[in-house]
Protein backbone atom coordinates (compact mmCIF):
# COMPACT_ATOMS: atom_id res chain seq x y z
CA UNK A 1 0.00 0.00 0.00
CA UNK A 2 2.81 2.41 0.87
CA UNK A 3 4.49 1.48 -2.41
CA UNK A 4 1.33 2.11 -4.34
CA UNK A 5 1.15 5.50 -2.67
CA UNK A 6 4.82 6.15 -3.53
CA UNK A 7 4.32 5.45 -7.26
CA UNK A 8 1.20 7.60 -7.24
CA UNK A 9 2.94 10.49 -5.45
CA UNK A 10 5.96 10.26 -7.71
CA UNK A 11 3.86 10.70 -10.84
CA UNK A 12 1.91 13.51 -9.24
CA UNK A 13 5.10 15.29 -8.13
CA UNK A 14 6.66 15.08 -11.61
CA UNK A 15 3.51 16.44 -13.16
CA UNK A 16 3.02 19.25 -10.66
CA UNK A 17 6.60 20.40 -11.19
CA UNK A 18 6.47 20.56 -14.98
CA UNK A 19 2.71 20.59 -15.69
CA UNK A 20 3.60 19.47 -19.24
CA UNK A 21 0.94 16.82 -19.63
CA UNK A 22 -1.82 18.65 -17.80
CA UNK A 23 -1.42 21.84 -19.80
CA UNK A 24 -1.42 19.96 -23.08
CA UNK A 25 -4.45 17.91 -22.05
CA UNK A 26 -6.45 20.98 -21.02
CA UNK A 27 -5.54 22.94 -24.08
CA UNK A 28 -6.19 20.07 -26.46
CA UNK A 29 -9.51 19.28 -24.80
CA UNK A 30 -10.69 22.84 -25.30
CA UNK A 31 -9.43 22.81 -28.90
CA UNK A 32 -11.51 19.69 -29.51
CA UNK A 33 -14.59 21.50 -28.17
CA UNK A 34 -14.00 24.38 -30.56
CA UNK A 35 -13.42 22.06 -33.51
CA UNK A 36 -16.61 20.16 -32.72
CA UNK A 37 -18.59 23.36 -32.48
CA UNK A 38 -17.85 24.00 -36.13
CA UNK A 39 -17.91 20.34 -37.20
CA UNK A 40 -21.45 19.95 -35.81
CA UNK A 41 -22.49 23.48 -36.76
CA UNK A 42 -23.71 23.78 -33.19
CA UNK A 43 -26.03 26.66 -33.97
CA UNK A 44 -28.44 24.13 -35.47
CA UNK A 45 -28.35 21.37 -32.86
CA UNK A 46 -29.73 21.14 -29.36
CA UNK A 47 -26.72 21.68 -27.06
CA UNK A 48 -27.99 19.17 -24.50
CA UNK A 49 -28.07 16.53 -27.22
CA UNK A 50 -24.64 17.35 -28.64
CA UNK A 51 -22.74 18.02 -25.42
CA UNK A 52 -22.36 14.43 -24.07
CA UNK A 53 -20.71 13.06 -27.19
CA UNK A 54 -18.48 16.08 -27.71
CA UNK A 55 -17.45 16.08 -24.06
CA UNK A 56 -16.45 12.43 -24.01
CA UNK A 57 -14.52 12.70 -27.27
CA UNK A 58 -12.63 15.63 -25.76
CA UNK A 59 -12.02 13.64 -22.54
CA UNK A 60 -10.82 10.59 -24.48
CA UNK A 61 -8.43 12.60 -26.64
CA UNK A 62 -7.07 14.48 -23.65
CA UNK A 63 -6.75 11.23 -21.70
CA UNK A 64 -4.81 9.60 -24.52
CA UNK A 65 -2.33 12.48 -24.47
CA UNK A 66 -1.97 12.22 -20.71
CA UNK A 67 -1.43 8.44 -20.65
CA UNK A 68 1.14 8.67 -23.42
CA UNK A 69 3.01 11.39 -21.61
CA UNK A 70 3.02 9.41 -18.37
CA UNK A 71 4.96 6.58 -19.98
CA UNK A 72 7.05 8.66 -22.39
CA UNK A 73 8.57 10.46 -19.39
CA UNK A 74 9.65 7.15 -17.89
CA UNK A 75 11.04 5.97 -21.21
CA UNK A 76 13.11 9.11 -21.89
CA UNK A 77 15.14 8.91 -18.74
CA UNK A 78 15.23 5.16 -18.32
CA UNK A 79 13.14 5.53 -15.18
CA UNK A 80 11.01 2.52 -15.93
CA UNK A 81 13.96 0.22 -15.28
CA UNK A 82 14.42 1.91 -11.93
CA UNK A 83 10.74 1.57 -11.11
CA UNK A 84 10.81 -2.09 -12.02
CA UNK A 85 13.48 -2.66 -9.40
CA UNK A 86 11.01 -1.54 -6.78
CA UNK A 87 10.61 -4.38 -4.28
CA UNK A 88 6.93 -4.89 -5.00
CA UNK A 89 4.58 -6.65 -7.34
CA UNK A 90 4.51 -5.06 -10.80
CA UNK A 91 0.77 -4.87 -10.44
CA UNK A 92 1.32 -2.21 -7.76
CA UNK A 93 3.17 -0.15 -10.35
CA UNK A 94 0.14 -0.51 -12.60
CA UNK A 95 -2.28 0.60 -9.88
CA UNK A 96 -0.15 3.61 -8.96
CA UNK A 97 0.11 4.73 -12.57
CA UNK A 98 -3.57 4.11 -13.14
CA UNK A 99 -4.59 6.22 -10.14
CA UNK A 100 -2.23 9.03 -11.15
CA UNK A 101 -3.61 8.92 -14.70
CA UNK A 102 -7.15 9.07 -13.32
CA UNK A 103 -6.35 12.14 -11.22
CA UNK A 104 -4.78 13.95 -14.21
CA UNK A 105 -7.71 13.10 -16.42
CA UNK A 106 -10.26 14.22 -13.84
CA UNK A 107 -8.41 17.52 -13.40
CA UNK A 108 -8.38 18.07 -17.15
CA UNK A 109 -12.02 17.01 -17.41
CA UNK A 110 -13.08 19.56 -14.82
CA UNK A 111 -11.65 22.41 -16.87
CA UNK A 112 -12.89 21.04 -20.20
CA UNK A 113 -16.33 20.58 -18.66
CA UNK A 114 -16.48 24.18 -17.43
CA UNK A 115 -15.39 25.37 -20.88
CA UNK A 116 -18.12 23.26 -22.45
CA UNK A 117 -20.73 24.79 -20.15
CA UNK A 118 -19.77 28.17 -21.52
CA UNK A 119 -19.60 27.07 -25.16
CA UNK A 120 -22.84 25.08 -25.05
CA UNK A 121 -24.65 27.56 -22.80
CA UNK A 122 -25.58 24.92 -20.24
CA UNK A 123 -26.65 25.36 -16.62
CA UNK A 124 -26.28 22.18 -14.60
CA UNK A 125 -26.18 22.88 -10.85
CA UNK A 126 -28.63 20.15 -9.87
CA UNK A 127 -27.06 17.54 -12.13
CA UNK A 128 -23.49 18.09 -10.92
CA UNK A 129 -23.21 15.20 -8.40
CA UNK A 130 -24.47 12.66 -10.94
CA UNK A 131 -22.26 14.06 -13.67
CA UNK A 132 -19.33 13.83 -11.27
CA UNK A 133 -20.08 10.17 -10.57
CA UNK A 134 -20.31 9.31 -14.28
CA UNK A 135 -17.11 11.24 -15.06
CA UNK A 136 -15.31 9.40 -12.27
CA UNK A 137 -16.49 5.92 -13.32
CA UNK A 138 -15.95 6.58 -17.03
CA UNK A 139 -12.46 7.87 -16.36
CA UNK A 140 -11.62 4.87 -14.19
CA UNK A 141 -12.75 2.54 -16.99
CA UNK A 142 -10.68 4.52 -19.46
CA UNK A 143 -7.49 4.48 -17.40
CA UNK A 144 -7.98 0.86 -16.25
CA UNK A 145 -7.35 -0.40 -19.76
CA UNK A 146 -5.57 2.75 -21.02
CA UNK A 147 -2.65 2.39 -18.60
CA UNK A 148 -1.98 -1.16 -19.79
CA UNK A 149 -2.23 -0.23 -23.46
CA UNK A 150 -0.07 2.90 -22.99
CA UNK A 151 2.64 0.66 -21.52
CA UNK A 152 2.27 -1.55 -24.61
CA UNK A 153 2.34 1.36 -27.07
CA UNK A 154 5.39 3.01 -25.57
CA UNK A 155 7.33 -0.24 -26.01
CA UNK A 156 6.69 -0.42 -29.76
CA UNK A 157 8.62 1.21 -32.59
CA UNK A 158 5.72 3.60 -33.21
CA UNK A 159 5.70 4.74 -29.58
CA UNK A 160 2.89 7.13 -28.70
CA UNK A 161 1.35 7.16 -32.17
CA UNK A 162 -0.03 3.67 -31.65
CA UNK A 163 -2.02 4.32 -28.46
CA UNK A 164 -5.20 5.84 -29.92
CA UNK A 165 -5.35 3.14 -32.59
CA UNK A 166 -5.24 0.28 -30.10
CA UNK A 167 -7.09 2.01 -27.26
CA UNK A 168 -10.22 3.40 -28.92
CA UNK A 169 -11.68 0.11 -30.19
CA UNK A 170 -11.20 -1.44 -26.74
CA UNK A 171 -12.62 1.54 -24.91
CA UNK A 172 -15.81 1.63 -26.98
CA UNK A 173 -18.08 0.13 -24.27
CA UNK A 174 -16.89 2.81 -21.82
CA UNK A 175 -17.54 5.59 -24.31
CA UNK A 176 -21.00 4.23 -25.18
CA UNK A 177 -22.17 4.05 -21.58
CA UNK A 178 -20.48 7.25 -20.45
CA UNK A 179 -22.07 9.19 -23.30
CA UNK A 180 -25.45 7.58 -22.71
CA UNK A 181 -25.32 8.26 -18.99
CA UNK A 182 -24.25 11.87 -19.53
CA UNK A 183 -27.06 12.33 -22.03
CA UNK A 184 -29.57 10.85 -19.59
CA UNK A 185 -28.45 13.22 -16.85
CA UNK A 186 -28.56 16.28 -19.11
CA UNK A 187 -31.94 15.12 -20.37
CA UNK A 188 -33.26 15.24 -16.81
CA UNK A 189 -33.48 11.50 -16.16
CA UNK A 190 -33.81 10.21 -12.60
CA UNK A 191 -31.20 8.13 -10.78
CA UNK A 192 -33.14 4.95 -11.56
CA UNK A 193 -32.32 5.16 -15.26
CA UNK A 194 -28.64 5.58 -14.51
CA UNK A 195 -28.33 2.18 -12.84
CA UNK A 196 -27.47 0.27 -16.00
CA UNK A 197 -24.74 2.53 -17.44
CA UNK A 198 -23.21 3.10 -14.01
CA UNK A 199 -23.14 -0.64 -13.34
CA UNK A 200 -21.56 -1.35 -16.74
CA UNK A 201 -18.89 1.32 -16.24
CA UNK A 202 -18.05 -0.09 -12.83
CA UNK A 203 -17.97 -3.64 -14.20
CA UNK A 204 -15.69 -2.60 -17.05
CA UNK A 205 -13.29 -1.00 -14.59
CA UNK A 206 -13.21 -4.10 -12.40
CA UNK A 207 -12.83 -6.56 -15.31
CA UNK A 208 -10.07 -4.70 -17.10
CA UNK A 209 -8.45 -3.50 -13.91
CA UNK A 210 -8.05 -7.14 -12.86
CA UNK A 211 -6.75 -8.28 -16.26
CA UNK A 212 -4.29 -5.39 -16.42
CA UNK A 213 -3.19 -5.91 -12.81
CA UNK A 214 -2.40 -9.55 -13.62
CA UNK A 215 -0.77 -9.00 -17.02
CA UNK A 216 1.01 -5.67 -16.52
CA UNK A 217 4.31 -7.27 -15.56
CA UNK A 218 4.41 -9.13 -18.88
CA UNK A 219 4.31 -5.98 -21.00
CA UNK A 220 7.18 -4.26 -19.21
CA UNK A 221 10.61 -4.86 -20.66
CA UNK A 222 12.74 -7.19 -18.58
Amino acid at each position, binding site marked *: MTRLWAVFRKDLAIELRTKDALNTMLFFGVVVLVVFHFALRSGDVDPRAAAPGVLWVAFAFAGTLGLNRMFAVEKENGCLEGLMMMPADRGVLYLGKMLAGTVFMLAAEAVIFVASLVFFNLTVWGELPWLGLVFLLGTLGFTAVGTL*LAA*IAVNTRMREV*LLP*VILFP*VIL*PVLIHAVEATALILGGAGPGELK*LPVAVLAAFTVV*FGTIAFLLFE*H*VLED
Partner: protein
Amino acid sequence: MNKRTTARLDMVLWGVLGLAMIAALYLAFVDAPRERTMGDLQRIFYFHVAAAITGMTAFGVNFAAGVAYVARRDRKWDRLALAAAETGVVFFAIVLITGPIWAKPVWMVWWTWSPRLTLSLVLCLLYIAYLLIRRYIEDPDRRAMIAAVFGIVAFVDAPLVWFSIRWWRDIHPAPMLESGGIDPAMRPAFWACVASFELLLVYLLRRRCALESMREEMERLERLAG
Protein backbone atom coordinates in the same frame (compact mmCIF):
# COMPACT_ATOMS: atom_id res chain seq x y z
CA MET B 1 4.84 -35.78 -35.99
CA ASN B 2 7.53 -35.96 -38.65
CA LYS B 3 7.61 -33.77 -41.70
CA ARG B 4 6.29 -36.34 -44.14
CA THR B 5 3.22 -37.12 -42.02
CA THR B 6 2.51 -33.40 -41.70
CA ALA B 7 2.77 -32.90 -45.45
CA ARG B 8 0.45 -35.87 -46.09
CA LEU B 9 -2.05 -34.58 -43.56
CA ASP B 10 -2.06 -31.20 -45.32
CA MET B 11 -2.67 -32.89 -48.66
CA VAL B 12 -5.58 -34.92 -47.29
CA LEU B 13 -6.98 -31.79 -45.66
CA TRP B 14 -6.64 -29.92 -48.94
CA GLY B 15 -8.51 -32.65 -50.82
CA VAL B 16 -11.33 -32.87 -48.28
CA LEU B 17 -11.57 -29.09 -48.22
CA GLY B 18 -11.91 -28.93 -52.01
CA LEU B 19 -14.68 -31.51 -52.04
CA ALA B 20 -16.47 -29.84 -49.12
CA MET B 21 -16.39 -26.47 -50.85
CA ILE B 22 -17.78 -27.84 -54.10
CA ALA B 23 -20.51 -29.60 -52.12
CA ALA B 24 -21.26 -26.40 -50.18
CA LEU B 25 -21.50 -24.36 -53.39
CA TYR B 26 -23.86 -26.91 -54.93
CA LEU B 27 -26.03 -27.06 -51.82
CA ALA B 28 -26.17 -23.27 -51.41
CA PHE B 29 -26.82 -22.34 -55.04
CA VAL B 30 -28.71 -25.32 -56.46
CA ASP B 31 -30.09 -27.58 -53.78
CA ALA B 32 -31.38 -25.02 -51.25
CA PRO B 33 -34.85 -23.69 -52.09
CA ARG B 34 -35.37 -20.09 -53.15
CA GLU B 35 -36.44 -17.89 -50.27
CA ARG B 36 -40.00 -16.58 -50.64
CA THR B 37 -39.55 -12.82 -50.17
CA MET B 38 -35.83 -12.22 -50.70
CA GLY B 39 -35.36 -14.59 -53.62
CA ASP B 40 -31.86 -15.66 -54.55
CA LEU B 41 -30.42 -12.81 -52.54
CA GLN B 42 -30.97 -14.85 -49.39
CA ARG B 43 -28.30 -17.33 -50.53
CA ILE B 44 -25.60 -14.92 -49.40
CA PHE B 45 -26.73 -15.80 -45.87
CA TYR B 46 -25.00 -19.20 -46.08
CA PHE B 47 -21.61 -17.63 -46.67
CA HIS B 48 -22.15 -14.55 -44.52
CA VAL B 49 -23.12 -16.43 -41.35
CA ALA B 50 -20.61 -19.24 -41.95
CA ALA B 51 -17.82 -16.66 -42.28
CA ALA B 52 -18.94 -14.94 -39.06
CA ILE B 53 -18.99 -18.22 -37.13
CA THR B 54 -15.58 -19.19 -38.50
CA GLY B 55 -14.14 -15.74 -37.77
CA MET B 56 -15.36 -16.02 -34.18
CA THR B 57 -13.72 -19.45 -33.98
CA ALA B 58 -10.47 -17.91 -35.20
CA PHE B 59 -10.56 -15.16 -32.56
CA GLY B 60 -11.34 -17.77 -29.93
CA VAL B 61 -8.27 -19.69 -31.07
CA ASN B 62 -6.27 -16.45 -30.84
CA PHE B 63 -7.43 -15.96 -27.25
CA ALA B 64 -6.70 -19.55 -26.22
CA ALA B 65 -3.27 -19.44 -27.88
CA GLY B 66 -2.54 -16.12 -26.14
CA VAL B 67 -3.42 -17.57 -22.74
CA ALA B 68 -1.29 -20.65 -23.55
CA TYR B 69 1.64 -18.41 -24.50
CA VAL B 70 1.45 -16.37 -21.30
CA ALA B 71 1.37 -19.59 -19.29
CA ARG B 72 3.92 -21.66 -21.22
CA ARG B 73 6.05 -19.16 -23.18
CA ASP B 74 6.28 -21.58 -26.06
CA ARG B 75 6.61 -19.79 -29.40
CA LYS B 76 4.38 -22.29 -31.19
CA TRP B 77 1.41 -20.74 -29.39
CA ASP B 78 2.44 -17.33 -30.65
CA ARG B 79 2.55 -18.59 -34.22
CA LEU B 80 -0.93 -20.05 -33.81
CA ALA B 81 -2.21 -16.78 -32.31
CA LEU B 82 -0.80 -14.79 -35.22
CA ALA B 83 -2.28 -17.17 -37.79
CA ALA B 84 -5.66 -17.05 -36.04
CA ALA B 85 -5.73 -13.23 -35.88
CA GLU B 86 -4.89 -12.88 -39.57
CA THR B 87 -7.42 -15.44 -40.77
CA GLY B 88 -10.04 -14.07 -38.37
CA VAL B 89 -9.66 -10.61 -39.90
CA VAL B 90 -10.03 -12.09 -43.39
CA PHE B 91 -13.21 -13.96 -42.42
CA PHE B 92 -14.67 -10.84 -40.85
CA ALA B 93 -13.76 -8.89 -43.98
CA ILE B 94 -15.97 -11.40 -45.83
CA VAL B 95 -18.72 -10.79 -43.26
CA LEU B 96 -18.44 -7.00 -43.61
CA ILE B 97 -18.49 -7.17 -47.42
CA THR B 98 -21.34 -9.67 -47.84
CA GLY B 99 -23.44 -7.96 -45.13
CA PRO B 100 -24.03 -4.63 -46.88
CA ILE B 101 -24.59 -6.36 -50.25
CA TRP B 102 -27.52 -8.17 -48.62
CA ALA B 103 -28.65 -5.26 -46.46
CA LYS B 104 -29.02 -2.64 -49.21
CA PRO B 105 -31.92 -4.32 -51.04
CA VAL B 106 -33.50 -5.80 -47.90
CA TRP B 107 -33.10 -3.05 -45.30
CA MET B 108 -32.72 -0.21 -47.85
CA VAL B 109 -29.46 0.82 -46.17
CA TRP B 110 -25.89 -0.39 -46.48
CA TRP B 111 -25.19 -0.15 -42.83
CA THR B 112 -26.89 0.22 -39.48
CA TRP B 113 -25.31 0.41 -36.04
CA SER B 114 -26.97 -2.69 -34.67
CA PRO B 115 -25.06 -4.89 -32.17
CA ARG B 116 -24.10 -7.58 -34.66
CA LEU B 117 -22.81 -5.17 -37.29
CA THR B 118 -20.99 -2.99 -34.81
CA LEU B 119 -19.42 -5.98 -33.10
CA SER B 120 -18.18 -7.34 -36.44
CA LEU B 121 -16.64 -4.00 -37.30
CA VAL B 122 -15.10 -3.49 -33.86
CA LEU B 123 -13.68 -7.04 -33.88
CA CYS B 124 -12.06 -6.27 -37.22
CA LEU B 125 -10.58 -3.06 -35.81
CA LEU B 126 -9.38 -4.78 -32.63
CA TYR B 127 -7.53 -7.51 -34.48
CA ILE B 128 -6.09 -5.12 -37.04
CA ALA B 129 -4.75 -3.21 -34.01
CA TYR B 130 -3.39 -6.54 -32.76
CA LEU B 131 -1.54 -7.05 -36.06
CA LEU B 132 -0.27 -3.45 -35.98
CA ILE B 133 1.20 -3.93 -32.51
CA ARG B 134 3.02 -7.03 -33.73
CA ARG B 135 4.45 -5.17 -36.66
CA TYR B 136 6.06 -2.50 -34.50
CA ILE B 137 7.86 -4.70 -31.98
CA GLU B 138 11.20 -6.08 -33.14
CA ASP B 139 12.12 -8.52 -30.41
CA PRO B 140 10.27 -11.81 -31.11
CA ASP B 141 9.78 -12.82 -27.46
CA ARG B 142 8.50 -9.40 -26.43
CA ARG B 143 6.30 -9.27 -29.50
CA ALA B 144 4.79 -12.64 -28.62
CA MET B 145 4.11 -11.65 -25.01
CA ILE B 146 2.67 -8.19 -25.70
CA ALA B 147 0.54 -9.53 -28.54
CA ALA B 148 -0.79 -12.25 -26.24
CA VAL B 149 -1.75 -9.64 -23.62
CA PHE B 150 -3.53 -7.49 -26.19
CA GLY B 151 -5.26 -10.54 -27.68
CA ILE B 152 -6.65 -11.40 -24.25
CA VAL B 153 -7.87 -7.82 -23.72
CA ALA B 154 -9.48 -7.77 -27.18
CA PHE B 155 -11.34 -11.04 -26.67
CA VAL B 156 -12.66 -10.04 -23.24
CA ASP B 157 -13.74 -6.72 -24.74
CA ALA B 158 -15.92 -8.36 -27.41
CA PRO B 159 -18.87 -9.38 -25.18
CA LEU B 160 -18.78 -5.95 -23.51
CA VAL B 161 -19.06 -4.24 -26.89
CA TRP B 162 -21.92 -6.58 -27.70
CA PHE B 163 -23.95 -5.89 -24.57
CA SER B 164 -23.21 -2.18 -24.70
CA ILE B 165 -24.91 -1.84 -28.04
CA ARG B 166 -27.60 -4.40 -27.23
CA TRP B 167 -29.07 -1.66 -25.07
CA TRP B 168 -30.57 -0.20 -28.23
CA ARG B 169 -32.91 -2.23 -30.30
CA ASP B 170 -31.55 -4.65 -32.84
CA ILE B 171 -32.90 -4.93 -36.38
CA HIS B 172 -30.54 -7.72 -37.39
CA PRO B 173 -32.30 -11.05 -38.06
CA ALA B 174 -32.11 -13.10 -34.86
CA PRO B 175 -29.90 -16.15 -34.96
CA MET B 176 -32.00 -18.61 -36.94
CA LEU B 177 -30.48 -21.61 -35.25
CA GLU B 178 -31.70 -20.70 -31.79
CA SER B 179 -35.24 -19.90 -32.85
CA GLY B 180 -35.38 -22.82 -35.29
CA GLY B 181 -36.56 -20.37 -37.95
CA ILE B 182 -34.48 -21.79 -40.75
CA ASP B 183 -36.30 -24.05 -43.17
CA PRO B 184 -35.15 -27.71 -42.94
CA ALA B 185 -34.50 -27.69 -46.71
CA MET B 186 -31.94 -24.92 -46.20
CA ARG B 187 -30.08 -26.62 -43.39
CA PRO B 188 -27.76 -28.82 -45.49
CA ALA B 189 -26.50 -25.77 -47.41
CA PHE B 190 -25.96 -23.82 -44.21
CA TRP B 191 -24.11 -26.55 -42.35
CA ALA B 192 -22.06 -27.45 -45.42
CA CYS B 193 -20.91 -23.83 -45.63
CA VAL B 194 -20.06 -23.71 -41.94
CA ALA B 195 -18.19 -27.01 -42.15
CA SER B 196 -16.17 -26.05 -45.21
CA PHE B 197 -15.28 -22.64 -43.78
CA GLU B 198 -14.16 -24.24 -40.53
CA LEU B 199 -12.09 -26.72 -42.52
CA LEU B 200 -10.63 -23.85 -44.49
CA LEU B 201 -9.75 -22.19 -41.19
CA VAL B 202 -7.93 -25.30 -39.98
CA TYR B 203 -6.06 -25.55 -43.26
CA LEU B 204 -5.10 -21.86 -43.30
CA LEU B 205 -3.99 -21.99 -39.66
CA ARG B 206 -1.77 -24.99 -40.37
CA ARG B 207 -0.21 -23.40 -43.45
CA ARG B 208 0.26 -20.04 -41.78
CA CYS B 209 1.91 -21.61 -38.73
CA ALA B 210 4.23 -23.59 -40.98
CA LEU B 211 5.11 -20.44 -42.92
CA GLU B 212 5.76 -18.47 -39.75
CA SER B 213 7.93 -21.23 -38.33
CA MET B 214 10.00 -21.23 -41.54
CA ARG B 215 10.30 -17.47 -41.36
CA GLU B 216 11.50 -17.65 -37.76
CA GLU B 217 14.01 -20.33 -38.70
CA MET B 218 15.32 -18.12 -41.49
CA GLU B 219 15.63 -15.14 -39.18
CA ARG B 220 17.56 -17.30 -36.73
CA LEU B 221 19.93 -18.48 -39.48
CA GLU B 222 20.41 -14.93 -40.72
CA ARG B 223 21.36 -13.85 -37.22
CA LEU B 224 23.83 -16.71 -36.96
CA ALA B 225 25.35 -15.82 -40.34
CA GLY B 226 25.42 -12.07 -39.68
